[in-house]
């Protein structure tokens, strides 16, 4: 384990705040630099409010040249830096560990090119996910990865975390939709990996960069694949008496060779909250419902929907409802995508959403384990998740003002995630490792695995000056848990 990286460098001795600010202003201009205490507070954390560090300065580049200038200045001054999009990470991915220069990419928000015939677009990293899809509407195209936070999160952030979403099941995650990136390396050189054409020769560096959580450099431009809107949809709602029936249906659908666009499960507790908020008409006495959607060419789609209905019925579905109009379909999806926000209605002041993955066929086991764990620790629990991917999001509900409950949540989360690993899965489906789950890395990977990951990072980012303290544990980090987890309490958390 001692071969792992040295601790992340912090500001070099003798580093002068005044000099740093002056350099930054020289690169991007006065209007693109923030230093006020109020501004630093706004950038000290993201959606994961447990880890906080104030940056020394926030800069807004508006071009690749700006990023190069910032990065070079940071190198000369020995200061760490981190790129940030909309700050919606749920794992502390946008927290600048140890302080330094926060490179806020939110002003690089232009869609540079939309090429309909070749089906790609070129965007700056600060473009909000849904803006791209909105801009593509007139062409009958969309950008497929649709995280539930797509109304706010940026393409740059999606690239960093390799984001998923409900429609990931059929269309793939972010990496399947990124054709190329322009990357400012941590030493200030600019490389372009991939590009508008498919299948470029050489190593697939784009694939390595997507999901690297900002540890390889700053992405300054992205070539994304565009997807044709499906000709038709069939959206079904299966109603089940037991969670086992629901999860078995999911395995059987995939096992039958059907590739649904989405398979999303909501359990009884979650349904009661969603129903209170949206009045959709969900059955409140069912143990689980599964939203089952197929899309594609209109021809043959009904037959596929009928097969799904048959599989659900065979697994004791009490009822299979259909969304008959586009409005009904949109209402159903709205209820699903905003489900986390309705948890406030369940009477607990705080909640903690976990993000784990198991092989699809292990869903019944992990669901039973989750229920048992919640019971053991006397915590409230509800579930809403991307069942088709085996990506579970158990939501533990508690009162953050009671230290015993907080401890229970921490322990329960740890047990659930460990069980995910035991069942052959992983500790994050889509939120990323960030700083939150760094302690789990040694549980999932052997020292040799981690060592090679460190070597790959070193090839891009030898001094760990770019996005320090993320994703990979530092030496010794695996033997003792990070102190912040032991000492502090989870805040209320949303996940999407």
């Amino acid at each position, binding site marked *: 384990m001692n071969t792992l990286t040295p601790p992340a460098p912090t500001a070099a001795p003798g580093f002068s705040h005044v000099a740093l600010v002056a350099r930054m202003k020289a690169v991007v201009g006065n209007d693109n630099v923030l230093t006020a205490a*109020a501004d630093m*507070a706004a950038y000290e954390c993201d959606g994961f409010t447990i880890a906080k560090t104030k940056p020394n300065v926030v800069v807004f580049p508006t071009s690749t040249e700006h990023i190069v200038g910032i990065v070079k200045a940071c190198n000369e001054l020995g200061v760490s830096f981190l790129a940030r999009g909309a700050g919606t990470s749920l794992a502390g991915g946008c927290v600048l560990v140890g302080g330094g220069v926060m490179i806020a990419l939110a002003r690089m928000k232009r869609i540079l090119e939309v090429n309909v015939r070749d089906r790609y677009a070129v965007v700056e990293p600060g473009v909000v996910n849904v803006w791209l899809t909105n801009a593509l509407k007139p062409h009958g195209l969309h950008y497929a990865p649709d995280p539930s936070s797509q109304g706010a999160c940026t393409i740059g952030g999606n690239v960093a975390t390799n984001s998923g979403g409900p429609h990931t099941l059929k269309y793939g995650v972010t990496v399947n939709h990124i054709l190329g990136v322009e990357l400012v390396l941590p030493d200030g050189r600019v490389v372009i990996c991939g590009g508008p054409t498919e299948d470029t020769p050489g190593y697939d560096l784009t694939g390595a960069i997507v999901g690297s959580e900002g540890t390889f450099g700053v992405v300054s431009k992205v070539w994304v694949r565009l997807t044709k809107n499906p000709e038709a949809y069939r959206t079904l709602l299966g109603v089940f008496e037991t969670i086992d029936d629901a999860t078995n249906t999911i395995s059987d659908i995939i096992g039958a060779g059907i590739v649904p666009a989405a398979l999303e499960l909501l359990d009884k507790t979650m349904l009661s909250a969603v129903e209170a908020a949206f009045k959709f008409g969900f059955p409140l006495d069912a143990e689980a419902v599964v939203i089952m959607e197929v899309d594609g060419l209109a021809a043959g789609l009904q037959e596929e929907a009928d097969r799904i209905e048959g599989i659900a019925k065979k697994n004791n579905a009490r009822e299979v409802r259909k969304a008959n109009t586009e409005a009904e379909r949109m209402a159903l999806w709205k209820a699903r995508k905003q489900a986390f926000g309705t948890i406030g209605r369940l009477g607990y002041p705080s909640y903690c959403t976990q993000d784990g993955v198991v092989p699809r066929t292990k869903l019944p086991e992990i669901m039973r384990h989750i229920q048992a764990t919640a019971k053991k620790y006397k915590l409230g629990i509800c579930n809403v998740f991307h069942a088709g991917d085996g990506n579970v999001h158990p939501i533990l509900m508690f009162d*953050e003002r009671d230290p015993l409950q907080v401890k229970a949540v921490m322990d329960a989360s740890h047990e659930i995630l460990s069980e995910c690993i035991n069942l052959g899965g992983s500790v994050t489906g889509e939120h990323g490792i960030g700083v939150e789950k760094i302690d789990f890395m040694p549980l999932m990977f052997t020292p040799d695995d981690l060592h090679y990951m460190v070597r790959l990072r070193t090839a891009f980012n030898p001094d760990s000056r770019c996005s320090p303290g993320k994703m990979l544990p530092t030496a010794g980090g695996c033997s003792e848990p990070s102190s912040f987890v032991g000492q*502090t309490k989870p805040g209320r958390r949303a996940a999407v």
Partner: protein
Amino acid sequence: MSATATPTKTALPVVPHAESACPTSHGPKVDYELVLDCVHCGLCTASCPTYVETSNEADSPRGRIYLMRSVIDGTLELDNDVKQHLDLCLNCRACETACPSGVQYGRILEPFREFMNELEPGRQIQSLNALQKFLLFHVFPYRWRNRVSLAPARLMQWTGLDWLTEKSGIMGLMPESLRSMKQMLPKLKPHYGQLPEVLEPEGKPRARVALFLGCVADSLYPETNYATAKVLQANGCEVWIPRSQGCCGALHYHSAEEAPARDFAAANCEAFGATDAERFKSLDAIITNAAGCGYQLKDYAHMMHNTPHAEVAARFQSKVRDISEFLMELGPVKPNHPLNIKATYHDACHLRHAQQIFKQPRQLLEMIPGLELIPLPESELCCGAAGSYNLTQPEMADRLGKRKTTNIAATGAKALFTGNVGCLMQITRHLKALEPDVWCAHPVDALWASYSGEMPKEIGG
């Protein structure tokens, strides 16, 4: 890593230790539970007009809540930077529509602003000069004072003198503040004079309603109040226009001047008969056509809580309806005369976000034969008018006004409808530079034109 990720203190909902941050003996009267509702997910950011413009997270709803919380917790000083970020907020509430957790942003911001005002009385309007303050508090809230003060402008526009003063450069002699306010004026139509106190229903009586006229709106857009009364009448409503009604109180309330705002509210409760529970029952609704007034009227119970008027205010509030909301509930009479025009609709924040009314005005417009309604990109983003915001934060108001009108011009629509007088003024003014011939009006103006066949001049009537 463990040494650098600073452990955070999870704030408990106790009385904040505010001595370090707040020089007064008490902190802001913010319900801390409401602050805790924000889980810091950031899904609100892209819906916020100021964040979309500045890209600074301290100018986003999540950032602002975090700043307020930090001040309450005593971890951040309430310095000028914090104040600036909070002042820049339009209070448009787009974040409340976007928030999945149901955070009541306005209920956090408003008491916090009040607190800032207590520390420095009048700070919110400190950028206004004496004339602007006088107009804001002593002219705008009164219908007759508005009409009198606008009479010269009306006369100048009518005689063409207005054009002459613009061209001759004589305007340069006027004070800057008056010049910019004159710029904001729309083309004024002749005032209808005074409607009778009661208008009888046409056809079978279906409802008995009272009409709220507003203050500035009535003088600037008299035709809209006229149209509203006539449309209601045509829908079988007996329309009562209480003579003694006044301003809704919003102009004062949003400048953190609570006492006069409450006086206006109490007077309106009296004027509309809410003090007499039995008689008030015979009234089906209190109708307003201005989103800003409508929201304020619907907030009377909150505004008057802990006062002797609380109960009466709640009774009053329960009957307030926006005109589009009321008509769609009632089932509107079908309009007949065609308006052959491409049109688009801008969501006034106080309708869309504060009252969640967005389908009804569109449904009304779509009923009009010949009218083609084109979707407006970013229709839910504030136009920058935001009450007196265009006076207190002119720079951001201008940026948002230009953004809005650029979007409108790109649709190619020849008419723009929106349900609020402030938006109408702001959009009309900014459209002058881009598409001066676009007809900017309230949906009810279009509806009345289609009912009556009296086409307004803007569309060749």
